C-alpha cells in the first residue's frame, strides 16, 4: 500500500519529462509550436479524432478482460452465459463503428488542413511580386505546393492520433508497472529515457538531411521542367544524352541523401528494439532475483512481462512516427517561410481614369551585379505614340518592365499623371510581352482577363488585333481550347491574342515589347492603323526593331547599353543622331516593300 501512494508520481513525471526532452533534443520544440498553431482552427475535428481513437482503443482493451471473465465464469459455473457473448459482439461492433468513424474524420481533417494550407499559400503567392517568384524559384514553390503540404497532411492524418494514443498507453502501462512493484518498475522504465535519447540523437542528425532531400527534389523538378520545355530543341540537337546526364546527377543526389537517411533509421530502429528487449531481460534477471528472494510472486512476474509488451508497442509507434515528424517539420518550415515572407504593401488602385502621362525619371536598374539601365529619363505625353529603338541587349525590355511595375527600379522613379506609381494604376497600364504566354483554357479565357469587358470592347479589341476573322473561322470560335505549348495557334496568332488581351483592359497606357516581330508586314500595318483609329487617346510606348513601323510616331528614343542616346521625331533623329541614321540605313533596303 505504501507503494501505491508513492508510485504513481515518478511514473507520471517520467512521461512528460520524456516528451519534453524529446521535444528539446529533436527541435520539435521549435517545429511544434507553429505546427500546433496551424492546427488550432481545426481543434474541434482533431479533438474528435483523438477521442475516437482513444475510445476505440479503450474499447478494444475491454475484449481481453471479457475473454478472461468468460474463462473464469466457465470454470466456476461450467457454462458460458449468453450475455457475455452479446457483450463481446456489441463491443466488437462499437469498435468497428468507431474506428470507421475515425477513418472518416481522419481523411476529412487531414485533407481539410492540406486544402486550407494550399489555399493560404496560393493567396500569399498571388499577392507577391514578380521578383519574389523569380528569386524564390518556381521549381521550389511547386514542391511547396505539392510534396511539402503532403508531408504536413501525413502528419495530421497519422502522427497526431498515433502519438496521443501512444502517450496514453505509455503512461498507463508505466503506472501499472510501478504499482505492481516500484523497484522493478523503475528499473524497467530506465529504458524509456534511453530510447528517447536514441531518438533525439538520430533525429538531430536526420533533420538537416530531410532539408537536403527536399532541396534535391527541387533540383529534380527543375531539370525535368527544363527538359520538357526544351523538348523540341533537345530532339533537334539530339542532345538527349546530355539531358539524361544532367538528370542523372540530380537523381543521384536525391538518392544519396535518401540513402543516408535510411542508414540513420536502420541504426535507430534496431537499437530501440534492442533497448525495449533489454526491458524483458531486466524483468527476468532482477524480477527473478526478487521472486527467489520472496519479494515478488511468479504471477506478478508474468504480469510484468505482459505489461512490458503493452509499453513497447507505443514506443515503436513513436519510432515510426519520428520519420514522419521530421519530414513534416522540414516541409512545414519551408511552407511557413513563404507564408511569412514580406509582401509588397497593398496598393489602393486608382479608380478614376488617368490621363496617360508617363514620366520616367533617372531610372537605374541592375540585374545581379550588372547595371542594365543607367539613368533613363523619358516623358510620354497623354495620347502620344512613342517608340524605343536600339540594339539587342540595350535594356529596352527591362525599361518596359520597370515602367509596368514588374521590376522595381534600384533608383529613380516612374510616375503616371505626375503622382501615381505603376502599381497604383496597374489596371490602366497593359503590356504585351515578347513571349506570348498562353494559359491552358479556351481562347476566350485567354483574352478576357478583364472582368468588366462588354461586347463593344470585345469587338473593338478583336478587330484591332486582327483576330475577328480568324476566330470566326474556328469551328469552336472563342471556345477553342489552347494549351501551354499548344499547336493550335502560330507564333503570330499568339502574339495577336496577347495584344487583344491587353486592349480588352482598355488601358490608358499600352506598352508593346517588339510585338510586331512575328507578324507579317501586311497584318502588322493593319494592326498599327487599327490602333490609331480605335484607340486614339491611348498613350503607346513601343519597343521595336523596325524603324519603318514607327516613322510617324511623336517621339522616338534611341537606347544603347542602358542609356538613351538621342530623342526626337524620326526627322529630328536622322539629322541629330548618326547612330540612328546608321540603323535606319541598315534597314533601308527593305523599306521598298513595307
Amino acid at each position, binding site marked *: 500500500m505504501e507503494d501505491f501512494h508513492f508510485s504513481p508520481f515518478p511514473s507520471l513525471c517520467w512521461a512528460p519529462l520524456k516528451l519534453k526532452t524529446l521535444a528539446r533534443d529533436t527541435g520539435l520544440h521549435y517545429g511544434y509550436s507553429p505546427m500546433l498553431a496551424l492546427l488550432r482552427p481545426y481543434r474541434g475535428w482533431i479533438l474528435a479524432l483523438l477521442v475516437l481513437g482513444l475510445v476505440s482503443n479503450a474499447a478494444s482493451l475491454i475484449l481481453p478482460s471479457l*475473454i478472461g471473465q468468460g474463462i473464469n465464469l466457465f470454470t466456476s459455473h461450467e457454462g458460458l452465459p449468453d450475455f457475455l457473448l452479446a457483450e463481446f459482439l456489441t463491443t466488437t461492433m462499437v469498435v468497428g463503428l468507431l474506428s470507421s468513424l475515425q477513418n472518416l474524420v481522419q481523411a476529412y481533417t487531414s485533407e481539410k488542413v492540406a486544402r486550407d494550407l494550399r489555399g493560404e499559400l496560393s493567396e500569399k503567392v498571388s499577392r507577391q511580386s514578380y521578383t519574389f517568384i523569380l528569386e524564390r524559384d518556381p521549381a521550389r514553390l511547386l514542391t511547396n505546393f505539392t510534396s511539402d503540404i503532403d508531408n504536413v497532411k501525413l502528419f495530421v492524418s497519422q502522427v497526431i492520433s498515433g502519438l496521443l494514443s501512444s502517450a496514453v498507453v505509455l503512461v498507463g502501462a508505466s503506472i501499472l508497472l510501478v504499482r505492481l512493484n516500484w523497484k522493478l518498475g523503475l528499473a524497467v522504465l530506465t529504458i524509456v529515457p534511453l530510447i528517447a535519447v536514441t531518438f533525439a540523437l538520430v533525429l538531430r542528425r536526420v533533420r538537416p538531411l530531410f532539408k537536403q532531400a527536399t532541396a534535391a527534389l527541387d533540383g529534380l523538378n527543375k531539370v525535368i521542367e527544363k527538359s520538357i520545355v526544351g523538348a523540341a530543341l533537345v*530532339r533537334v540537337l539530339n542532345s538527349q544524352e546530355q539531358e539524361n546526364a544532367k538528370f542523372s546527377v540530380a537523381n543521384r543526389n536525391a538518392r544519396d541523401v535518401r540513402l543516408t537517411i535510411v542508414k540513420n533509421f536502420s541504426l535507430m530502429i534496431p537499437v530501440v528494439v534492442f533497448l525495449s528487449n533489454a526491458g524483458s531481460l531486466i524483468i527476468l534477471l532482477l524480477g527473478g532475483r526478487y521472486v527467489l528472494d520472496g519479494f515478488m510472486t511468479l504471477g506478478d512476474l508474468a504480469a510484468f512481462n505482459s505489461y512490458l509488451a503493452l509499453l513497447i508497442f507505443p514506443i515503436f509507434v513513436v519510432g515510426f512516427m519520428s520519420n514522419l515528424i521530421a519530414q513534416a517539420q522540414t516541409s512545414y518550415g519551408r511552407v511557413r517561410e513563404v507564408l511569412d515572407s514580406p509582401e509588397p504593401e497593398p496598393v489602393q488602385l486608382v479608380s478614376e481614369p488617368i490621363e496617360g502621362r508617363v514620366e520616367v525619371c533617372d531610372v537605374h536598374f541592375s540585374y545581379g551585379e550588372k547595371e542594365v539601365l543607367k539613368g533613363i529619363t523619358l516623358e510620354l505625353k497623354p495620347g502620344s505614340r512613342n517608340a524605343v529603338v536600339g540594339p539587342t541587349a540595350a535594356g529596352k525590355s527591362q525599361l518596359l518592365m520597370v515602367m509596368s511595375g514588374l521590376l522595381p527600379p534600384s533608383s529613380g522613379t516612374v510616375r503616371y499623371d505626375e503622382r501615381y506609381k505603376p502599381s497604383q494604376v496597374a489596371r490602366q497600364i497593359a503590356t504585351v510581352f515578347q513571349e506570348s504566354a498562353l494559359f491552358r483554357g479556351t481562347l476566350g479565357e485567354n483574352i478576357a482577363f478583364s472582368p468588366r469587358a462588354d461586347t463593344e470592347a470585345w469587338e473593338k479589341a478583336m478587330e484591332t488585333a486582327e483576330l475577328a476573322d480568324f476566330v470566326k473561322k474556328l469551328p469552336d470560335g472563342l471556345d477553342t481550347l489552347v494549351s501551354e505549348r499548344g499547336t493550335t495557334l502560330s507564333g503570330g496568332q499568339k502574339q495577336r491574342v496577347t495584344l487583344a488581351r491587353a486592349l480588352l483592359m482598355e488601358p490608358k497606357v499600352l506598352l508593346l515589347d517588339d510585338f510586331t516581330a512575328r507578324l507579317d508586314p501586311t497584318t502588322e500595318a493593319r494592326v498599327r492603323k487599327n490602333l490609331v483609329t480605335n484607340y486614339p487617346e491611348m498613350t503607346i510606348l513601343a519597343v521595336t526593331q523596325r524603324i519603318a513601323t514607327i516613322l510617324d510616331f511623336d517621339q522616338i528614343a534611341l537606347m544603347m547599353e542602358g542609356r538613351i542616346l538621342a530623342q526626337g521625331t524620326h526627322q529630328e533623329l536622322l539629322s541629330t543622331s548618326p547612330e540612328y541614321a546608321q540603323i535606319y540605313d*541598315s534597314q533601308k533596303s527593305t523599306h521598298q516593300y513595307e
Partner: protein
Amino acid sequence: MNELLAPERRTLIWAGGAILLTSALNLGAPAVIAHAIDGPLTRGDYRGVLEHGALLLLMYLVALVTQNFQTLRMGSVGQRVLFRLRGQVFEKLSQLPVAFFDRHQTGDLISRINNDTDKVNQFFSQSLMQFVGSFATMLGAAVFLLGLNPKLGMATLAPAVVMLILTRLLSPWIKRRNAVSLKTTGELSSEVNESLANFKVIVAFERRDFFRQSFSEINATNTEQAMKAGVANGILAPIYTFCSQLGQLVVLGLGLSMVSRGQFSLGLLIGYFVYVNRFYDPMRQLAALWASFQAAGAAYERIAEVLEDSSSLPVLDRDSVTSEVPKGRLEFRDVGFGYRPGQSVLSDVDFCLEVGKTYAFVGPTGGGKTTTASLMARLYDPVTGAIFLDGRDLRSYSGQERSDKIGFILQEPYLFGETVGDNVESLMELEGLFPEGLATPIEGLSLGQRQVVAFLRAVSRNPDLLILDEATANIDTVTEGILSEILARLPSTTTRVVIAHRLNTIENADAIFFVNAGRVQLAGSMEQAVCLLRHESRSS
C-alpha cells in the same frame, strides 16, 4: 516492374533471410523467458536464470544485427528502385516525340516523375519490409493454430477467409479511388506550374484574382478526391479489426464448448489465444499496408502510361533509298499533316530544295510555315506522303544522323545550362553583346541575346540543312547584318531555309516559297512574293 527489381534479387533474398531470422528470434525470445520461468526460476536456481538471461541477450544482439541489416537493405532497395524508376521515366520522356508534350502538361509530368514514383517508393522502402515481416509471423501462427487443433484452427481462420474475399472485392475500388486522386494531384501541379511560369502575365494583367479562383477550384476538386481516396484507404482496417475480434469470439465460444466436451484443456485454450493474436495482429497491419500497395499500384500505372507510350517516331529501315537523287536534296512528296486527327494544317505539299541554295518561306501568320519547318526536322511525321533527304526517307535517319545533317533554330530560343558557354564554344564577332562573354549567365539574357546564342549554336554545328524559323525576329538590324555574314561564311553546300517576316532577311534567297492556308507554292520573284503577301487573303 520486374526489371526494376531484377538487379536487387540478391539483396532481396538476403534481406528476406534477415527478416525471417529477426521474426524467428522475436518469436523465440518469449519461449526462452517462459522456459526460464517454468524451469530454473520455479526450481530456485538463479544460476540457471542467469544462463537463460545470457542466451536471451545473445538472441537480442543477433536480432540487433539482423534487423539493422534488413532495414538498411530493404530501405536501400527502395531508394535504388526509385532511382532507376525515375531514370527510366526521364529517359523515356527524352525519347518521346514533341507531339507527346503538346498533349501533356509540364506540371502533370513532373508530378508523375516525382509524386507518383515516390508513392511506389513508399511502398518499397517502408511497407514492403513490414509486409514480409507481418506475413511471416502470420504464417507461423497459422501453422500453430492448425497444428494444435485442426478443427478449432479452421474455425478460427474462417473470418480471415471472409477478409480475403472482401479485400479482393474492395481492392479495385481502392485502386480506382487512388488513381483519380493522383490524377487531380497532377492537375493541381499543372495549374501551379503554369501560373508560376507565367507569373509575369499574372502580375502585369492583375490576373491574381483569376489565379486565386482557378487554383481554389482545382484545390477543392483535389481535396474531394483525396478525401475519397483517404476513406477508401482506411476502409479495410476496421473490417480487419472486426474480423480478428470475431476470430477471438469463435475461439472463446467453440473452444469452451470443446473444453466442456473434454476435447481440449483450458490451459491449452489460454495458449491458443496467444496464437490467435499472433495471427490477427499482423493481419491488421496488413490492412493498412494493402492500401499503400493499392496506391502504389495506381501510381505505377500512371508512370507506366508514360513508359509504355508508343507514340515515339520509329526509325525505319534504310531500304527506301532511291540512288539517282542528287546528294543533299530535300524533297516533300504529297505531304499532308495535321496536329490532331481530322485537322489539316498542310495538304498536298510538294517541293524540292537543292544543295547549297537559300530558300525563303514567307506567308501570313498561321499559314503553316513553322509546321513545314518542323516536318523538315522530323519533330513530327507527315500524316500522308513522305519527306526525302538525299533520296532517303527522312524517317530512316537515326536521331544522331538527323541532328548532324539538319540544324533548326526554333521560334522560341531555348538555352541549356547556366551560362552562354554551356551552349556555344565561341561568340565570334558578337562577343560585345555579352558583358561577361561565354561566362554570361543565361538568366537575365534578353530575347534578342538568346536568339543570337541559339543562332550561333546551330551554325557552329555546321549542318547540311539549316532552318531558321523567325530566328532573328527580335534582333536589331545591325546585329542581324553580322549574323547574315556568319551565315554567308557557311560552306557552299549548306542549304538554308529562312522563315521571316522582315523582307531584308529573304531578299538574297535563291527561291521564295509562299505558304498560306496549308499550301506551299513557289513564287517566281521577290516582287511576286510581296504581291502574294499583299493580296492573298489571310486565311488565319
